[in-house]
């Protein structure tokens, strides 16, 4: 049967699949063997750098992959539950645990793996070895893919804000991935509020770190695009539209507001009710951020006048009475928004 299941794999893949199938079927397997298995000593000689890649190839695709990944996760959980991080490490044990953790980071089985991984994080006993087999890095990756519910949401947001985690290697962009891979809540909602916070933080960090505005926009846009591509199938208001609102109100750096506005045009078509509701919600005078918020609308309008004329037209109409004073208040050159041109073109 396994040979039929894997008929479409390459010869190497079929060999890996046969081994994985036999390995999973072994009733005498115990966690005592894990160092041998995951340093590759028991594997057939194949040109793979690390054993975990070899196991992944042997999982196959489709239903077979799901079934094997489920059985493999149970074995990996047994290894993790034996607290391998509390035993003395030599190079082989480091390599084996590194492979176990990276294998966890490639198969999503949070029901089985989240708890033992969380306990390993709680023990904080993995050695710090940034060179070679970086076990803490591998644990971070495994936790991203097998999150214990939303428990780590705050950890990723703080990491994105630049706070140094005492145990896991801190990286703002890895934190973005961590939030992206958090599971939806009971209502089926992904971590939109946390993602909004992270995007604002990353926009500010990019503003400070990346002087080339085009490169900065490209990087930020790539992150923005990753969100709807990952949290697919939006039913009503889109994630980008929500970020757009946040970008005005928070407010995000100006370049980031423009990036979000461009994405709204790309993904949504004209969300006119959103525009009108926002215009109504922002006060016409007062102190605080109102000037910057209206500046955000101004910037967005400059994008929409070109990209989605219908929205641009409405925004310009709604704002036209105030534009004269705005030029001075928000410090945007008047030439950025040529009010006559769209109407003269019949928009």
């Amino acid at each position, binding site marked *: *049967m396994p040979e*039929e*299941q*894997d*008929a*479409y*794999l*390459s010869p190497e893949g079929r060999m890996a699949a046969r081994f994985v199938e036999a390995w999973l079927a072994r009733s005498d397997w115990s966690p005592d063997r894990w160092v041998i298995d995951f340093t590759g000593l028991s594997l057939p000689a194949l040109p793979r750098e690390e054993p975990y890649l070899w196991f992944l190839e042997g999982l196959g*695709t*489709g*239903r*077979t*992959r*799901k*079934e094997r*990944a489920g059985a493999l996760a149970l074995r990996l959980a047994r290894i993790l539950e034996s607290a391998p991080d509390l035993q003395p490490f030599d190079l082989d044990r480091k390599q084996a645990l590194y492979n176990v953790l990276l294998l966890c*980071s*490639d198969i*999503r*089985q949070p029901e089985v793996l989240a708890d033992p991984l969380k306990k390993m994080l709680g023990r904080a006993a993995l050695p710090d070895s940034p060179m070679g087999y970086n076990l803490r890095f591998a644990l*971070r*990756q495994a936790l*991203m*893919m097998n999150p214990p519910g939303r428990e780590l949401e705050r950890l990723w947001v703080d990491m994105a804000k630049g706070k140094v985690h005492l145990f896991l290697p801190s990286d703002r962009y*890895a934190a*973005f*991935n*961590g939030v*992206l*891979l958090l*599971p*939806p809540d009971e209502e*089926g909602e*992904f971590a939109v509020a946390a993602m909004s916070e992270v995007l604002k933080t990353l926009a500010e960090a990019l503003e400070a770190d990346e002087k080339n505005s085009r490169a900065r926009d490209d990087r930020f846009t790539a992150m923005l*695009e*990753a969100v709807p*591509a*990952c*949290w*697919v*199938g*939006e*039913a*009503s208001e889109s994630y980008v539209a929500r970020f757009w609102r946040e970008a005005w109100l928070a407010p995000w750096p100006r370049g980031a507001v423009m990036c979000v506005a461009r994405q709204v045009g790309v993904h949504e078509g004209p969300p006119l009710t959103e525009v009108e509701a926002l215009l109504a919600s922002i006060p016409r005078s007062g102190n605080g951020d109102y000037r910057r918020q209206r500046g955000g609308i101004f910037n967005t309008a400059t994008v929409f006048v070109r990209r989605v004329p219908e929205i641009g037209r409405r925004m310009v109409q709604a704002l036209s009475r105030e534009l004269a004073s705005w030029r001075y208040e928000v410090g945007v050159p008047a030439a950025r928004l040529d009010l006559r041109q769209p109407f003269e073109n019949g928009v």
Partner: protein
Amino acid sequence: MKTILILDRGAGNVLVFLSTMPKSVNLEINKCLSDESRVALLNLIHDGRISRLRKAELDKCLPAAPASPPLPPEMSDTAGRIRDAVWTYYNSRIAVPFAPDYCSPALNGDNFVPVATPGLTVGFHPDTLLVHVVDLTRYLDAFQQAQLPGVPGSRPQVIDWLKSNLPVFPNKTVPGRSTAEVDDFVDQALDAIFRYEAAMRPPPTWVALFRQFRPHESRGPNAWLQVLGMRDSYNGLSRYPLVLVYKLYDVGTLIRPTQLDAGFDAFHFPSPPTARISEGGFAMDRSPGSVQPAPLSEFLHEPRRCSAVDWKLGGSLAGPTVVAGGGMDLPEARRRHHGRLRLWISPDWLRDVTALF
């Protein structure tokens, strides 16, 4: 390598050439077979998702050229032979218990939907919810084979039997039955379907994104089938859809469909070349109404054993359809779907091809 070479000469004048046939053998698709076969052939022509290797596999399924005339009626033209090739391919390479071609990385890897991982964030979230609507009335044979309690002997009684065991939308409970009893029946029915199909020819499971499907939940059983391109009645009999929801990581590999995965089904429609892989294919909505709503993305995966857990995750939705009579005909459904695709996905796609309908 033998490949199918298909030339599009514009509206109403589409010619098909096959490398395995003499060039003198060609046909005008508009004159061939039934409407359904004609548009299925057109789907093949315009489906840009079929890899060269898969076309070569399809080529192998072409029946050998008849030695001399007169030819049997069903083999009398190129279209008939392509139709036979598609069904042979479907039955031998798609609806198979192990290693179907749509799961082959070599043959169909370009249609694998990427899943986000810590190292690759451009992909679907592994917890993405998928919805699969199964029409229970199609599986009377499976229920009889599994000897489910009280299963009727003929089709007209199926609906009554299902009504006595399952909720009738909008209800979520069955009078006189406990929740555990209903769940148990759903488990038994789904298990019977899985075993029945595994023993026969298991077709790929077609799914949509649950978040896109959700606004249609309250519209009732007819709409559940219609928005996914399925018939809401058959020969004047109503149907009994059951809504199943599960996570992407429960299916192993999610795949963007092609015409080959649908057999010769004319209610499939190719997706525009500009559509991203994450948009999948697009289900042909059969519900009456305007052309405005965006089409639902559709995908497929290898059959999996579903259970009452999946049914409850979808909100315990089940119920018989109402037979309204009439229904949308094929050309109308295709014309509207094409309009939707041009409105939402690709304005310039197939602008001038009226022969598609």
